[in-house]
């Protein structure tokens, strides 16, 4: 499990309006690009100074590539990061206020306490 890297993906996509649109339009290609180019970029270091070891597991990569926020929850991705980014991606497709947020809750309705650990 690389919960930290899942969170890093959600965090760095969410804060960049252009990447939000790329991830909405072509999630698989965006995840592939991000893992190759951005996963090991340490956010507070110059571009040349990178980590060398951060990768997704196959199931994590697939969950991101299919916009599967239920899986992300089950993997322990930080729920605030997932919610915020997915609102940005899909709220626009719903007519009712909070329509997407309520469907999101419904899709997680099989989850009971205790929730997956979100510690990193």
């Amino acid at each position, binding site marked *: 499990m690389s919960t*930290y890297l899942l*969170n*890093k993906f959600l*965090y760095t996509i*969410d*804060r960049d*309006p252009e990447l939000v649109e790329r991830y909405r339009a072509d999630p698989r290609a965006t995840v592939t690009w991000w893992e190759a180019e951005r996963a090991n970029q*340490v*956010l*507070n270091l110059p571009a040349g100074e990178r980590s060398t070891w951060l990768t997704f597991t196959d199931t994590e990569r697939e969950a991101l590539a299919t916009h599967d926020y239920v899986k992300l*929850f089950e993997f322990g991705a*930080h*729920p*605030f*990061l*997932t*919610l*915020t980014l997915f*609102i*940005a991606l899909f709220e626009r497709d719903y007519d009712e206020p*909070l329509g997407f*947020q*309520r469907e*999101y*809750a*419904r899709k*997680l*309705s*099989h*989850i009971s*306490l*205790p*929730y997956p650990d*979100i*510690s*990193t």
Partner: protein
Amino acid sequence: MATVAAVIASTHHPFYYRASTATGVDRPPFADEWVAKIEAFRETLTRARPDVLVMVGSDHFHQLWLDNMPQFLIGKAPFYDANFSNEEREFGLPRMFLRGDEELSAYLLRQGLDAGFDLAFSNELRLDHSITCPLITLRPEADLPIVPIYTNIFAPPLPQPKRFVELGKAIRELVESWPCEARVAIIGTGHLSLELGGPRQFGPHGPDPEFDRKAIGWIASGDLGSALAEVSLDSLWLPGNATHGFMDFMLMMGVAGESVKADYSDSLDLFHTMEAYFTWYPEAAR
């Protein structure tokens, strides 16, 4: 010495700004009641005639990140930009620009470190809605210098609830020992029961009305004993997965003092959360 002019604790609901400024068909049915409550709450700060605001909140992964996460942090900048593009996108919050009180920041940092709190600091902190929401509700002119204090209620491992209370008590003592003839309001925002990104989110009420009822009772009566006895890092997952924000309320109970009843207390049962508003006027400020 400085005077603590008021101690204020409240929830911070990022939808308030949009709800309160919406008109016509866009205005939600609960907006008028919400605005009336907020305006009454605002008066409790205005009446205290503050010169400086110490503001306790928590970054929501807008700037602070898991590569280097502080537990408690004090901003020490002369100015603060506030609100982020994703808050503008999701909540319609405006960008804000605030003046800092560098002298009080430096004092709280030095004295706080010497009192046993290993506080982080930032010279370039950009503030998010945990600080700007209470400004919008309580001081929309945003004309007073501030000292922001951030707590980690968000990225486990978190400090224990008692540590929040202890820091609150220390902040109160340090502000009262600040050698400056200023009236300081100490304002902090957190949450009651709250679920975000989980199955209980965005229901007709907060996820745990029973927790909310008890928590409001603890805060209004200053019952730190019961709050500390019943609340733990593990128990806070039960009322809702974002309920650790209640520890900012516990910090503010520490500021207000053990068993000190709030002079003003109000709440609003809104969809999704219970909103709650409290003000204490310390004896010396009356």
